[in-house]
């Protein structure tokens, strides 16, 4: 059991040997490692998916303006726009990923999957997939378990935190979870699922974390939409058995290596990239508290 969720190769061979479905092995892990009952796992998954769907709907219905004003009802505008660039389904996918993430930026309730900064990707993709393919909730929950297994391995081999690995670690991981979950839900094989993860990671590698004023708003919200789109393109490619060539475990290793060598200013510090632009700095001056006290040495806490 110990080698579960240390690598994709290990996960695949474990499931082959024990004749388990991917999602069943994730349940087995949670039961043995965390002492949960299978029933409580399904209940918690159901709760998580409900919160995800609510976030999508809230973002498309309620007023969504962040305290900084940078986020201002973008999802609704996209959803209601008369021109569909590709198809109405694509328009809905993008607006739903934006919607759930806007809810996060505006202090609403979300599921951090895997993190709060990437909380629009799984809701946007799975909501839309379920609608298009008329999938059961049970199937989506199984897909979420597959996504959780993917994230557990990325956490082991690389990182899920923007402060450690940049944006690739947050939106990249969420997109990989989504792509894998989607291929699973559409009946893909284990190889196809892992290939979808590999392709997604290849598309998301190198993305830095450069939030304007340090807020989880710009560019986080639009990156949730682009990550949702990439998850879909990767799933489409993987289902057709077009190989990523570089195996999934090696793609994740590359992500870890890039994260480790990424300069600190590109890892959630708001010191580089978009945060360091002229406009980014101006916004930062306006949004961040300026009248902070600087204590004389003798008054500092010991």
């Amino acid at each position, binding site marked *: 059991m110990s080698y579960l969720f240390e690598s994709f190769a290990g996960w695949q061979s474990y499931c082959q040997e024990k004749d388990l479905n991917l999602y069943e092995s994730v349940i087995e892990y949670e039961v043995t490692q965390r002492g949960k009952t299978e029933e409580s796992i399904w209940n918690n*998954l159901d709760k998580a998916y409900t919160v995800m769907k609510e976030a999508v709907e809230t973002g498309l219905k309620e007023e969504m303006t962040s*305290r900084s004003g940078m986020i201002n009802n973008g999802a609704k505008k996209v959803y209601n726009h008369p021109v569909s660039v590709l198809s109405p389904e694509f328009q809905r996918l993008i607006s739903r990923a934006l919607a759930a993430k806007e809810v996060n930026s505006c202090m609403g309730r979300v599921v951090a999957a*895997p993190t709060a900064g990437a909380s629009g990707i799984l809701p946007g993709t799975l909501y839309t997939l379920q609608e298009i393919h008329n999938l059961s909730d049970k199937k989506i929950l199984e897909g979420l378990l597959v996504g959780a297994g993917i*994230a557990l391995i990325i956490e082991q081999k690389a990182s899920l935190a923007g402060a450690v690995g940049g944006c690739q670690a947050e939106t990249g991981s969420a997109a990989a979870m989504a792509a894998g979950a989607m291929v699973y839900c559409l009946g893909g094989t284990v190889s196809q699922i892992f290939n979808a993860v590999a392709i997604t990671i290849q598309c998301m590698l190198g993305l830095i974390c450069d939030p304007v004023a340090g807020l989880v708003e710009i560019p986080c919200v639009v990156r949730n939409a682009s990550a949702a789109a990439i998850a879909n393109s990767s799933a489409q490619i993987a289902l057709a058995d077009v190989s990523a060539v570089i195996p999934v475990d090696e793609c994740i290793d590359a992500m870890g290596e890039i994260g480790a060598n990424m300069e600190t200013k590109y890892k959630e510090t708001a010191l580089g990239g978009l945060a360091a632009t002229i406009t980014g700095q101006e916004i930062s001056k306006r949004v961040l508290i300026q009248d902070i006290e600087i*204590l004389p040495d003798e008054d500092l806490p010991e």
Partner: protein
Amino acid sequence: MGTKSSVFDMIGPVMIGPSSSHTAGVVRIARACIKILGGIPDEAVITFYNSFARTYEGHGSDLAILGGLLDYKTDDANIKKSFELAKEKGLKYTFKSIGNASVYHPNTIKLNLTKGDKKTEVVGESLGGGIINIAEVDGFHANFSAQSHTLIIKAQDISGAIAFISSVIAQEKANIATMSVSRKGKNDMACHVIEMDSGIEPLTIQYLRSLTWVKELIYIPDIDL
């Protein structure tokens, strides 16, 4: 530590956005504080330090800390309305920002709370991912995560106190995960902070409280409940 990540660390937690360290962690620090104080405060002076000093407002940590002090959980949608709710429930509050307390963790909050004639001062750190550390309680070093069952005992600094308390806990078959003891001075007041893997019975708490050398006992079973 040494615990493997859960499926619900990957698909979760369910929380109020935007950031686990600025909202979820901050709510949890406040919830630990009200357990220490023994209820919702009448008055709160909240100081945000270092990185938090500049960023708390933009991330809504002011709403998060008030929400936690009003006993809302990390996923409660009421947190967004905490200013109005604090007014409604008679919680008076003041915010301060101090930028250069380099001895503190980058995301540190100090809370000075009053409820009736009871006062407490707590220093909490938001470590990321909603994980917290309560660094100080009333000037004593505490350092607990509030993730498991925590016992804070303020007692006279007498010989055998640590052995006595730990043997009482042992009789409950509760495993001590971490324990830290600090004191004001020799034979002065000491503070025992004990994190346990499982809970202890109300009768045991009552017994410990009845000891003449125990001045105060706070039991925090789970701040998320």
